[in-house]
């Protein structure tokens, strides 16, 4: 059930009406939202709804067990819960990847046979709800939040449908208090941020349906399918194009998730902050997939020691965090190497900042830093998008093949890419201003304007819409 389909619109209208109609009966209200979320998830594959249910109940029970224990027993419970959550990921996402690697090693050592492949289907969103489950038990272990007594709180936290299948990864400490607040009746008439929601949903739809789709269909998919066939002009444009496509695809989904959650009365933190205006790799990761980068920082980098130690130890922590962050994206060497490259770039940037004089300040200096950072990001995304390492090398080799005339590069797709980059340099407060402007007139004006803009996006979009990139993670 994709956000842009009329089927989802009908589902959301029902869920919205049922959720607010039950607001006066708190427990029923939470169960209604949870049931709607499970219906949404079961629409992908009903069998995996049991996995989500099992994950929720397990983490709920583990957190309750944590609260009753201290010392070594408490550490054992949290270690067991973390291992179980990672075990789910390892089984569904990485089993065949590791089996393939092990079998290659065995063959190289002269052994016959090897591990059998499981051939499991990857449950959509498993990386996201597993990380949320981990966040819950670890936050309870750290005493940052109390364990939930009613199971429905945890089930809703893991399954809240706007952000269930592709994030943002919302911390337990950010979402559970909002869920718990629903257990008391509202003091007055409930209000929702409708103008804000409209801006987020419309901007997300435009980014995904118009920008990401055309760039993918008209340029990126063909160029990456066989890079040896194209020259430098096509491949450079495809490299820029993929960076803009993945930004529009993923931030578009996040915007829609934030907008839909706002209509249900939940505030979900932003996931992107104009990442291509970053002037360093460190700044890039503060602006790109913020919910993942902060998750990795707080649950992996800091527990390993973070930057409290010698420079070499900090570099190791940074590199390992990014390496595992790359692996989180998928069971493929391209993702692992992409994470390793980002780790190496962050380490190098840190070392350079210590050894070299500071970067030139002022507008020109920042513009140069943004230019360099953007190109590092673009080139690493080529690796991320490549189906295999040989295709990645083919792509890199083609970037110097200037004698070959362009076949894919055209004014339309170049214009869309330029628009996708230009969005990064609009005033940061523009969406808030648009949200206020939309909310100021009477509600029929908001409905009419939002409807006309929705229709316009529907008209501009191609009939065939590619799946969201982050669904595969």
């Amino acid at each position, binding site marked *: 059930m994709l956000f842009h389909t009329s089927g989802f619109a009908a589902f959301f209208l029902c869920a919205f009406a049922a959720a607010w109609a039950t607001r006066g009966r708190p427990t029923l209200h939470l169960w209604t939202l949870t049931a709607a979320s499970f219906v949404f998830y079961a629409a992908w594959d009903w069998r995996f709804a049991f996995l989500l249910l099992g994950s929720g109940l397990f983490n709920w029970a583990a957190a309750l067990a944590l609260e009753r224990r201290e010392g070594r027993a408490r550490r054992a419970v949290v270690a067991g819960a973390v291992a179980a959550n990672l075990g789910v990921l390892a089984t569904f996402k990485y089993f065949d990847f590791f089996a393939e690697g092990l079998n290659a090693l065995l063959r190289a050592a002269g052994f016959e046979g090897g591990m059998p492949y499981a051939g499991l289907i990857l449950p959509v969103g498993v990386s996201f709800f597993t990380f949320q489950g981990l966040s819950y038990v670890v936050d309870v272990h750290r005493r940052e939040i109390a364990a939930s007594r009613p199971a429905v709180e945890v089930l809703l936290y893991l399954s809240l449908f706007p952000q269930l299948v592709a994030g943002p990864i919302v911390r337990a400490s950010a979402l559970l208090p909002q869920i718990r607040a629903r257990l008391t009746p509202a003091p007055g008439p409930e209000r929702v941020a409708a*103008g*804000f929601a409209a801006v987020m949903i419309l901007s997300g739809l435009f980014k995904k349906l118009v920008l990401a789709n055309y760039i993918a269909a*008209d340029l990126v998919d063909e160029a990456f399918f066989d890079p040896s066939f194209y020259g430098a002009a096509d491949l450079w444009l495809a490299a820029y194009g993929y960076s803009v496509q993945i930004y529009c695809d993923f931030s578009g989904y996040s915007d829609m998730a934030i907008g839909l959650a706002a209509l249900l009365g939940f505030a979900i933190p932003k996931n992107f902050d*104009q990442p291509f205006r970053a002037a360093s790799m460190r700044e890039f990761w503060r602006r790109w997939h913020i919910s993942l980068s902060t998750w990795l920082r707080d649950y992996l980098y800091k527990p390993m020691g973070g930057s409290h130690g010698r420079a070499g130890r900090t570099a190791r922590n940074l590199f390992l965090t990014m390496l595992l962050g790359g692996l989180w994206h998928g069971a493929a060497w391209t993702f692992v190497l992409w994470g390793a490259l980002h780790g190496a770039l962050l380490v190098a940037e840190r070392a350079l900042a210590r050894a070299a004089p500071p970067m030139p300040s002022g507008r020109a200096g920042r513009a140069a830093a943004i230019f360099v950072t953007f190109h590092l990001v673009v080139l690493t995304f080529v690796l991320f998008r490549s189906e295999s390492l040989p295709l990645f090398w083919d792509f890199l080799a083609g970037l110097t093949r200037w004698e070959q005339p362009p076949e894919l590069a055209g004014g339309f797709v170049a214009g869309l890419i330029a628009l996708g980059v230009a969005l990064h340099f609009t005033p940061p407060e523009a969406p808030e201003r648009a949200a206020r402007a939309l909310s100021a007139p009477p509600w029929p004006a908001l409905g009419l304007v939002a*409807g006309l803009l929705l229709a316009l996006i529907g008209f501009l979009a191609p*009939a065939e819409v590619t799946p969201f990139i982050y669904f595969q993670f």
Partner: protein
Amino acid sequence: MAEPTPETPPASLPVGRAAAALALALLVALSLNPRVPGGWARDAGLPEATTLAAIDAADALAAWAEAAGLTAPGDWVSARVQALREE
């Protein structure tokens, strides 16, 4: 486009009015969408009229762009117009 922060309190509407605005938005969008059958505006011929007008405008733009040497014959503009006509 900059992503707004949920921490910033945005302007809000009572739930009832937000629901009405949402329903109106979906009604307008689905009615005007030429790919959605059964919409009242489609039955009244409005989407066809607006779609045809948009196609004519796109056709004229494509012809002008080709004449000005900005696009090649048969590229995305023509392809998009053709796809819309087929739909």
